[in-house]
């Protein structure tokens, strides 16, 4: 499907109450536009529930269900089973946030992935608990300010690196995992379409900027996602039946500093911290693309094997 072939009609209507420039609203609108009307949606506690449905109003034009925070995987399994029992062939889609996937919903998602249930799990990753007022989640990158990782004299921002959710999900040996960015429409459309046609547990990982949480200009939502990809903070690839394929490779690696300085949540970062994050990005870049990024950027630290199994590791955990 090309951009111009997408239907005019929208299954996520206007008038919803997301912040201006919301990356999640943009991703939801386009995902549901591609998935079409034979879709049932589950959304756990998140912004998407608040701005998409405020009783008795709702923006969804497809069957929509919401219960608790931690059970996206289980609910989707149940919904799919119920529709199957009724003889209806639908795509069961869950739109969970990074909090509802990285931390709170991880067990439920893992269960559904293990059973390889025929559902589509979409993680809208805005890198913190934005709905409750910007608290740190497992998806929050190194150095980022949140209300629970404040900027103080001794410690500035989040001290841990973003959790590698991709490898956790892929380790379930699911048929399809892909990362998406709203700044790359063709790639976005292709991956959602592909996820629709595959049977089994499919996971789409969407990068969705949050204007108040990232403290940035609402007009820059798309620009910042593009820069995230160009700098290596976000990489676009898909894993189909264990086989990994890079779907977009940036020409030349941009410095992570350019990406950081667009956002208020990183503006306090010290040179040392930026360097630390740059090293992390370089390692990730090296791992993904199998080559050095921009030499002048990555020279600051020789990239090492990211997930190499060391002798030490073998001794501790066996081969």
């Amino acid at each position: 499907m090309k951009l111009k072939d997408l239907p005019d009609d929208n299954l996520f209507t206007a008038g919803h109450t997301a912040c201006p420039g919301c990356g999640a609203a943009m991703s939801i609108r386009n995902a549901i536009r591609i998935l079409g009307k034979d879709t049932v949606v589950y959304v756990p506690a998140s912004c998407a529930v608040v701005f998409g449905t405020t009783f008795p109003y709702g923006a969804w034009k497809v069957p929509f269900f919401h219960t608790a925070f931690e059970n996206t995987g289980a609910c989707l399994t149940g919904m799919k089973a119920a529709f199957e029992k009724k003889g209806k062939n639908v795509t069961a889609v869950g739109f969970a946030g990074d909090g509802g996937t990285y931390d709170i919903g991880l067990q439920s998602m893992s269960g559904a992935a293990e059973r390889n249930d025929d559902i589509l799990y979409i993680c809208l990753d805005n890198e913190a608990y934005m709905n409750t007022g910007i608290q740190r989640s497992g998806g929050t990158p190194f150095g980022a300010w949140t209300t629970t990782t404040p900027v103080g004299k001794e410690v500035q921002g989040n001290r841990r690196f973003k959790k590698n959710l991709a490898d956790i999900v892929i380790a379930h040996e699911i048929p399809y995992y892909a990362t998406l960015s709203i700044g790359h429409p063709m790639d976005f459309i292709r991956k959602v379409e592909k996820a629709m046609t595959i049977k089994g547990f499919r996971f789409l990982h969407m990068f969705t900027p949050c204007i108040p949480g990232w403290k940035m200009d609402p007009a820059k939502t798309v620009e910042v996602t593009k820069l995230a990809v160009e700098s290596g903070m976000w990489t676009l690839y898909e894993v189909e039946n264990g086989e990994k394929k890079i779907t977009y490779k940036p020409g030349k690696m941009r410095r992570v500093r350019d990406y950081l300085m667009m956002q208020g949540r990183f503006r306090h970062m010290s040179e040392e911290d930026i360097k630390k994050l740059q090293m992390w990005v370089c390692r990730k870049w090296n791992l993904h693309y199998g080559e050095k990024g921009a030499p002048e950027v990555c020279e600051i630290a020789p990239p090492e094997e990211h997930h190499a199994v060391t002798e030490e590791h073998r001794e501790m955990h066996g081969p």
Partner: protein
Amino acid sequence: MFEVRFHGRGGQGAVMAAQTLAEAAVIEGNYAVAFPFFGAERRGAPVLAFTRIDAKKIYSKTQVYAPDCVVVLDDSLLDTIDVVAGLKPDGMVVINSKEKPQDIDLGKEIKTAAVDATSVALEILKAPITNTAILGAFAKAAGLIRIESLEEAIKRRFGEKLGEKVGERNAMAARTAYEKTVIGKSKGIKKLESRKQWLPAYQELPVGGALFEGKTEAGLIGPGSFIENKVSGWATFRPLRDKEKCTMCLLCWFYCPEGTIVRISDRGDLMTNYDYCKGCGICANECPVDAIKMVRARV
């Protein structure tokens, strides 16, 4: 006791304004409290904040229902909210508006101070965050707090949180607005109808809150009914598309998070529905041929 109610939109800083006003009152040796009204507020949605000032200790913890002064950070709120509700007869309204007080219709003839705080904020702060500017207008109109104390409070509160320079710029915004404020009397012609709400008895509610598409006297409910919610008031800017330059690449249509830009395939054209535009500016920022530019909404 002097009670103030702030009407603003998420992101304009109504809460910070209430707190800063309280701080200024404390600097002058008074007692003061400030607190916001919490709902599921997003950026741009209407919010409330309150400040109480007294020479004695304040024990009242409720919302302010009969304010001495109402501060309106955004005049587009007048279309949907009865801002003067409960206002004391000798009270007053401080409003962010391009118009003169006598041209502003509040549904009540009342002492009104007007200042174009959005322009002041855009000029000095380079962002439509009107809280400090409107406080300057409050200082002039109410005569309760000296502008010097207010500047000090702004420098303290904003400086602490956002850096000294930001504090000073905000104090300047307050001073500029203070000097530009016009005081007069508002018009009291319009009768604001409060928005009807669907309020079913509990027996009428569906099991589990499950709703089908439906129509009530308060409008649509259920799936897709959010189109009832017009959000144009959220926007400070809005997009204007130059049809000559447009190449119909459809990127703006894809990127618009609101559904403001509507595609009509039959006509092969795009349409902009301003009822739903929150003025984020993504379309203008992403247009590859610069066919879209953002202009001030409601001029």
